[in-house]
Structure formats: structure tokens, C-alpha cells
């Protein structure tokens, strides 16, 4: 317990230290002030920006796009994962595709997605979805693989039917991996949507950052950037905390 508090403290210390270091470096001109804003000003800019209607609209647009992509990826990734787990031959054939999936920069498909879905949120949702889907799918496969065979036998000893076996034994046993998949899916959906907006679209937070960069508005750029990074870190930290609470209870047994 004391060790884990020490680790936690050190983590906060390192984070704060790095921020202070950056602040000092910016203030003393060690880092060109035109290139990087001091963290205190980034934070001030972020707070200011979050009161403007335009930024709030961008936040809403981006977050809702991410939410749809994420939920779709989790549900469909899980369903496809379960189906694929039941067809080992198909799975073996698809395995190399899954293994190489994340080596392909999916943004190259954006023009195709625009042609398919038109402009607007749909192609962005598709990018977020495509970025997140395999993470959930792979996690589902892995989770089902790791259900100890003896637990399936226990289910049979208790004469459970397929539905109850799935709900009471298989799902809880696979849960740690499924959770991992959910966590990664959220991160990848967010990365995909922001990058799609950044490079190619005309709306949302990603676009606003790119636009601010191109119009030399560093204050807006850094304010928004901080907000995006904080959103990612906070959502990931919350999910991780939830996950480790779950893990701690059941250990790694």
C-alpha cells in the first residue's frame, strides 16, 4: 500500500515537474516562445475557449462522432469476434489480415469513405469505427481463447444451457480482455476521428486545431490541443481505474 502511494505521488510529481520545466523553459526563452506556449497560458486559453459557443459546438460534434464510432465498434467488434471464434477455419484465414491491420494508415481510405457516405459526420464515424473495430475484435477473440476449458466443463456439470453458459461463465471469464478491448477501442476511435478531422474534414476539434495552426493563431491551437489531450488522458485514466478495481478484486487468477 505504501509503495503504491509512493508510486502515485512520484507520478504526480513527475507530471507536475515536467509542466513546471516547460513553463520555465518557455518563460526564459529556452524554447522559442513563438513555437510553444507556456502551459499556464495553454490552460488559460483552454478555459477561455471552452466558454465560446463555436468551440463548444466543435466539442459536441467531435464527441458525438467519437461516441457513435466507439459504440458501433464495440458492439460489432464483439459480435464478429464471437462469430469468428466459432469458425476456426475462417479465423485462421483472416488472422494475417488482423495482424497487419494496424500497419495500414486507414486515413488513406478517407476519399473512398467520402465517396461512399458523402460529406459530413458519416465518413468520420466510419474512420473512427474502422480504427476501433479490430481492437475490440482481437480482444474478444483473445478473451474467448483464454476462458479456461475447465470452466466450460463446470458449466456442463451444472447442466447449464448455451445461453446461461455464455452469460454466467464465458462472459465473466472473458471480461478482463473485453475491457481491454473497450479501452483501446475508445482510444482508437478518438485518435481516428481527430486525425480525420485534422487532415481532411471541415469541422470538429481536429479541424479547428489545423485551422488555428494555418492562421498562426497559436493561442487557440494550444488551448484546443490541451483540451483534446486532456480528454484522452482523463477518459483513459478513468477506464483504467475502473479496470484495475475490477482486476484487484479478482486478482490475476
Amino acid at each position, binding site marked *: 500500500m505504501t509503495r503504491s502511494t509512493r508510486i502515485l505521488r512520484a507520478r504526480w510529481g513527475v507530471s507536475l515537474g515536467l509542466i513546471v520545466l516547460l513553463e520555465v523553459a518557455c518563460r526564459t526563452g529556452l524554447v522559442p516562445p513563438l513555437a510553444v506556449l507556456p502551459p499556464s497560458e495553454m490552460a488559460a486559453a483552454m478555459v477561455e475557449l471552452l466558454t465560446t459557443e463555436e468551440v463548444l459546438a466543435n466539442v459536441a460534434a467531435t464527441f458525438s462522432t467519437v461516441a457513435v464510432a466507439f459504440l458501433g465498434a464495440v458492439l460489432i467488434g464483439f459480435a464478429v469476434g464471437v462469430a469468428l471464434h466459432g469458425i476456426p477455419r475462417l479465423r485462421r484465414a483472416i488472422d494475417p489480415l488482423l495482424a497487419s491491420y494496424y500497419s495500414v494508415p486507414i486515413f488513406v481510405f478517407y476519399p473512398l469513405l467520402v465517396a461512399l457516405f458523402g460529406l459530413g459526420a458519416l465518413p468520420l464515424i466510419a474512420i473512427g469505427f474502422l480504427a476501433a473495430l479490430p481492437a475490440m475484435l482481437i480482444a474478444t477473440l483473445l478473451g474467448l481463447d483464454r476462458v479456461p476449458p475447465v470452466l466450460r466443463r*463446470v458449466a*456442463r456439470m451444472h*447442466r447449464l444451457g448455451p445461453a446461461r453458459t455464455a452469460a454466467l*461463465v464465458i462472459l465473466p471469464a472473458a471480461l478482463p480482455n473485453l475491457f481491454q478491448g473497450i479501452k483501446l477501442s475508445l482510444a482508437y476511435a478518438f485518435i481516428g476521428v481527430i486525425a480525420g478531422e485534422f487532415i481532411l474534414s471541415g469541422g470538429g476539434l481536429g479541424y479547428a486545431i489545423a485551422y488555428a495552426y494555418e492562421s498562426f493563431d497559436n493561442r487557440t491551437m494550444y488551448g484546443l490541443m490541451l483540451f483534446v489531450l486532456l480528454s484522452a488522458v482523463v477518459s483513459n485514466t478513468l477506464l483504467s481505474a475502473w479496470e484495475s478495481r475490477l482486476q484487484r478484486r479478482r486478482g490475476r*487468477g
Partner: protein
Amino acid sequence: MTETAAHAVLRGVTRVYPGASQVHALGPIDLDIAKGEFFSVVGPSGCGKSTLLDVLAGLNPPSAGTIVFEGKPVAGSVPDGVGVVFQEDASFPWLTVRDNVAFGLRRLGMDAAEIARRVDYAVGFMGLADFAGAYPAQLSGGMRQRVCIARTLVLQPRLILLDEPFGALDQQTRLLMGDELLRLWRETGATVLLITHALDEAAMLSDRVGVMSSRPGRFIDLVETGWPRDRDSRIVSDAAFGAVTARLWSSLRTESMKAIGRG
């Protein structure tokens, strides 16, 4: 031993693993297990002991032959009244000890008060009362195996099948778990079939020990121990215990040599 009636009857039971290799794992086996008997099976590794248990439990169908439990044929599923304890840790890591033990009863739709009563009894009987709210990850291997035994015990099975349940435990824990198993057997009046690779364990616990050959597993010897019903692990200091163990080993030695490739 009082042989009232055959509780489980196996006739010509054979198991050949399906698929290209067609491994002949077991049999043919003919065996009558009496009601209330403590029967153990020993044999060289890979001889099909666990296959025998699977087939008897209805977890796997036999390739040939018949199994009858309480007058009804066993086919395709685990019959009512049969409980299995597996070799591996089969506790559910996401449930507390109490919920693990209550698992089967809840599936039967029993009322909550009755479930609580039975679970408390089983948890206490297995010496887990202080850990009822703990998760398996917080317990030792021996205690987890006790959780699994309690989970099977609450269902009040009339035939308990145990597949090397103490295989992963140290020798002292094994002896003590053996005592608890004997107590459970006496108090429930259930029939017990124990698969084990430990000759002393089989000799100490059983009314009768079946010695299996290397694959395909068949019974090459059936040894009656003649122990009284209220025995415990102290029997290992009895001279007769040495004689039983020696007989088991002499039956098994050649077969074990075959299993490690020196046959």
C-alpha cells in the same frame, strides 16, 4: 464393506478419440461401483484415467459400451445426482467464495434462505467460513480447491467424481484434504470415485482401488483395502497400509515403465 447394490455400472466402455489419429484411449472397461463405496483409480500418466471420469460423468460419450447410473443410462449430459471436482482450479475468479459455492443452487431456483443455509453449511464444513467474502485470487491453491469441492458438495450429489483434485497441492495439504474428503464421504453417504496418480492417497482413502494399464487403459488389478469406515490419514502408519501400497506398486510398475518409454 457393505455391498448393497451397484450404484454405477460400466459395461464394455471404450473411448477412441475421434479424428484422423483415432487414438484408442480407454477400455474396454467393465466395472460395478457399489452404493456408498469409495473407489479410487490409479494408473500411469496418460493411461486414460481422466477419460474414464469424463465418460462416467457424461461429459464425453463412450465410443462403445454402456454406462448406467442409478438404473438409468448416461448419455450425452451430466446426470442429476452426479457432482464433479476437476483437477485444475475451476473456481470462478469473478465470484466470492460464497457466490462460488451458491452457484449451482441459484441455477436450480431454490429459495434464498435455503440457499444461504446450505452454503453456510458447506462453507463451514470445508473450513472456509472466515473467507466467505474473499475472492479466489486471495486464497491459496488448496483453499481454492476446497471452494470447488464445496461448490459440488452443496448440490448433495449421490456420486462424486474427483479428477486428481489434490494434484497441485503439497504433501501435507494433500493428507489433510484427504481427511476432509473421508469425513465428507462418511457424512454424506455419497459414492466417491477418485482419480489419482498418488498410490498412498489411493491406498489411504479407498475401499477399493482399481489399477489401470497404460493406454488404452484397462483394469489390471482390483485391490480391496478392508479399512474401517471411520478411518483417517493416520492409517498410513498401519502395517497393512504398506502392504496395500506395495501391491499397488507391483501391479503398476511395469505399466509405468511403458508410459515413460522403457517397456
